[in-house]
């Protein structure tokens, strides 16, 4: 079992030694159960770090902010940033390295193995507790979570309230790390695309009905792309019309912007937005499931990305987030790529 004391010890050491400028980790929130991202700058603050099943965030998203901030600074601190990652999050680091968005030497990775479980799904937990508020959720030695409510402690099999992505996790172990916490345990997974089947097995019209209902809910708050570590573009192609990139952007360049998608949250526009996201994440999405977690309208966005992940695997034998040196899914090909769909 991962001991938070070990993480704290290492965090304290690297901060004390000045190895990192700060550490991105998890801390307790002020208002309830879930953790919140923590930005720890001093060894004293290390005490705030926690590790429990509420540490859902993919903190690599904040490396994007870090890069932007650094670009603005006149004399940036060149030391690396410490970052706490789970297996899925570590794959995001791989893709960011692959796309040269970050450099290996700019990060110090504190990798945590999820061992036999993962992180929880807040909505599932709320249901499990019939709307009662949980005060605390902890790992135990086995495959259970220990939940504390006002009524006391209880043990729940982790699988019952585990996030969907964790139930379909392809590697719960950080593929990249400078220091590792926890054991490398292989979770047995019969099919990492299992949940997709229930949509794939629907008839075409039912699938359309499903997606129309889901995407019609979209309010285009863009939380899905905002939380996504792969959506690090300075400007999303979806936004082009509103964006003059810098003061140097000429009128000519501005006139060249295309409105691929309107701001209106109508069926057609929502579809194009989510298509663009899915296709741009094909071969890049590492299934951290954050887009789906943050969606205020509960749109099962993970399915779109998962579908692309499945096709990448099945058609092209491609897995994102394992090899920083491989070319991206759509920037390479094999002679024997399938073409049975082509006339």
């Amino acid at each position, binding site marked *: 079992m991962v001991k938070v004391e070990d993480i704290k010890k290492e965090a304290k050491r690297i901060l004390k030694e000045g190895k990192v400028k700060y550490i991105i980790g998890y801390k307790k929130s002020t208002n309830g159960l879930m953790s919140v991202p923590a930005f720890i700058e001093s060894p004293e603050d290390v005490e705030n770090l926690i590790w429990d099943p509420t540490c859902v965030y993919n903190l690599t998203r904040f490396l994007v902010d870090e890069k932007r901030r650094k670009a603005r600074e006149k004399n940036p601190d060149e030391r690396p940033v410490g970052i706490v990652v789970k297996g899925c999050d570590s794959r995001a680091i791989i893709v960011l390295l692959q796309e*040269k968005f970050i450099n290996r030497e700019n990060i110090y990775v504190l990798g945590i193995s999820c061992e036999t479980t993962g992180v929880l799904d807040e909505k599932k937990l709320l249901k499990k507790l019939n709307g009662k508020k949980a005060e605390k959720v902890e790992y135990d030695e086995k495959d259970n979570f220990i939940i504390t409510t006002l009524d006391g402690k209880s043990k729940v099999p982790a699988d019952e309230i585990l996030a969907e992505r964790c139930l379909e996790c392809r590697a719960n172990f950080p593929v990249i790390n400078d220091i590792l916490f926890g054991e490398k345990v292989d979770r047995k997974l019969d099919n990492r695309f299992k949940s997709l089947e229930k949509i794939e097995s629907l008839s075409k019209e039912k699938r359309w009905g499903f997606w129309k209902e889901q995407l019609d809910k979209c309010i285009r708050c863009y939380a899905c792309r905002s939380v996504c570590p792969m959506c*690090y*573009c300075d400007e999303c192609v979806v936004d082009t019309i509103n964006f003059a990139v810098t003061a140097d952007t000429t009128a000519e360049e501005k006139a060249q912007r295309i409105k691929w998608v309107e701001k209106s949250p109508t069926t057609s526009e929502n579809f194009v937005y989510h298509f663009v996201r899915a296709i741009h994440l094909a071969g890049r999405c590492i299934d951290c499931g954050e887009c789906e977690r943050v969606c205020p309208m509960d749109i099962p966005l993970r399915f779109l990305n998962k579908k692309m992940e499945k096709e990448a695997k099945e058609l092209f034998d491609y897995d994102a987030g394992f090899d920083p040196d491989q070319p991206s899914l759509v920037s390479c090909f094999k002679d024997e790529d399938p073409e049975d769909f082509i006339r």
Partner: protein
Amino acid sequence: MKKRTGVFVCHCGINIAGTVDVKKVTEELSKHPGVVHSEDYIYMCSDPGQNLIIDAIKEKNLDKVVVACCSPTLHETTFRNTIKSAGLNTFQCEIANIREQCSWVHKDMEKATEKAIKISKSTVERVLRNESLDPISIPVTRRALVIGGGIAGIQSALDLANSDFEVVLVERSPSIGGHMIQLSETFPTLDCSQCILTPKMVEVSKHPNIKLMTFSEVQEISGYIGNFKVKILKKPTYVDPDKCTLCDECTKVCPVVVPNEFDLGLTGRRAIYIPFPQAIPATYILDINSCPGLLPIACGKCADVCEPNAIDFDMKPEIIEEEVGAIIVASGYDQYDKELMAEYGYGKYPDVLDGLQFERLLSASGPTMGKILRPSDHKEPKEVVFIQCVGSRDPELHCEYCSKICCMYTAKHAMLYKHHVHDGQAYVFYIDIRSGGKGYEEFVQRAVEEDGVLYLRGKVSKVFEDKEKLKVWGIDTLIGKDIEIDADMVVLAMATRPSNGAEELARKLKIALDKDGFLAEAHPKLRPVESVTSGMFLAGAAQAPKDIPEAVAQASGAAAKAISILCQERLYHAPTVANVNINLCTGCGMCVDVCPYDALSLKNGKAEVNEVLCEGCGTCSATCLRAAIQVKNITPLQVHEMINACLGG
């Protein structure tokens, strides 16, 4: 400034007007935003038609032109030049293809007209957003590289050198001369191959404009037309050619004998040897693979006897970098592999020879000094069977293509055999006789009529040894009978295939191969000496099987093509190339990965286009997730607006 577009709709006689209501197209287009002038005319490409355009540009102050007519492959250049003469940039004209893609393929006038209107409108939307561009100018390195020192390479090198351009001629074997120097006599004139080739070889070696690099291989090529950078690996010969006096003392002491490549194994040579007497450069070389050891302790006898101290065991491979403006690839051919021809006993029976071996037997300087003798028992063969199309024209088992030269050289072989062995009989098994070429048909007839060569139309099924004879089983399809010949010798006209290593060379040069592995020309009819990569040309049998006159002709053609580049101080390249918006670029490098021309690279974390290399294919633009790269004048915005125009209204 508001855009002022003129639309010109061509009737093309009735070719367009027959199915498209051109008046309606003209009228509809006049309503299109941005269009200030539209008119139709019976033949836009005629002089009066072009004058209409010029006049309209002047009168209406047009700055954009759309001509709705035939396919842009036909008259795009015409009309671009037209608007140029009226003072507009050539890129301000676009063609709406309403003939090939519309009037010629539809019958319903209403529907065809509607489609023609949409095509024209979408073309207006495109031209409205075209940038005025000027061709990209590139300085030229006025030297050439010729790869391959056979007859084609030699001819190209000499043509270039005589036109006063410096040439680097790279040959991977120790001497230039290629396969031609192995030949005895050449069809149809029967002049001696060595006699006509050696003067050219000497000219190469003495030419002040030619830098000859034998025993060398091209290792890496970068750059682009006009400005290639080439890395050449010069392999060590362990003999200093400047010191070697060709005294031949070394071979006398060398203890090693290995098959002689020049004679295709019909003779042997020492580990230190000269490839053949007339080799250029004229020097001995040490074959490291057969030499017992470079260390004096292992053998070193040759060095002991070498008076001028030409032998240098410490010679190291060298990498030589050259800069050139054009490249001619003349990497030649090889014969089809003998392992693949087991049914004819090739490689198993010593008296089954291939065409080149027979050339050596015929050669006055060959292993038998020009006498025809069986390798097995040195007896004169009285019955010789020549088999054509060995490995050629056999799509099931071997090569699909015709090797082209075999009909002629087999006739020559049979004829020369008869000249040597007057009482002998020559048989030729053939599928067809292909003797197109000046004096070729007459030559074949001469073999039949004057030399009594017996031509049998059919294939040989098997060759096997039977009591000192080679039994040849075949069929004569003309009389429909099985034939059995007890031959003393069998000569196989082996298929011609791309030389060993051609594939690797093509990869280094980034030029394509055709389905048979020969180097692919840019266009089979109209650009037969150009490769798909601009600035690289093809000569000789590397591109397809060829005889000597053809190889020489193509070599001169390639040289002329190369000269057409080298004679210019600057080159011009289409300016419709990719363009990076560095504000959007995140430097992920996906465009760099997909670029087929290595035109993209990352510089300071942003993609950068080498405009000279870029061919404007736009694969980068479709790959970029951030829309940070686009090809000029076919930008995503233009396509977006074209989609809109196609579907709107």
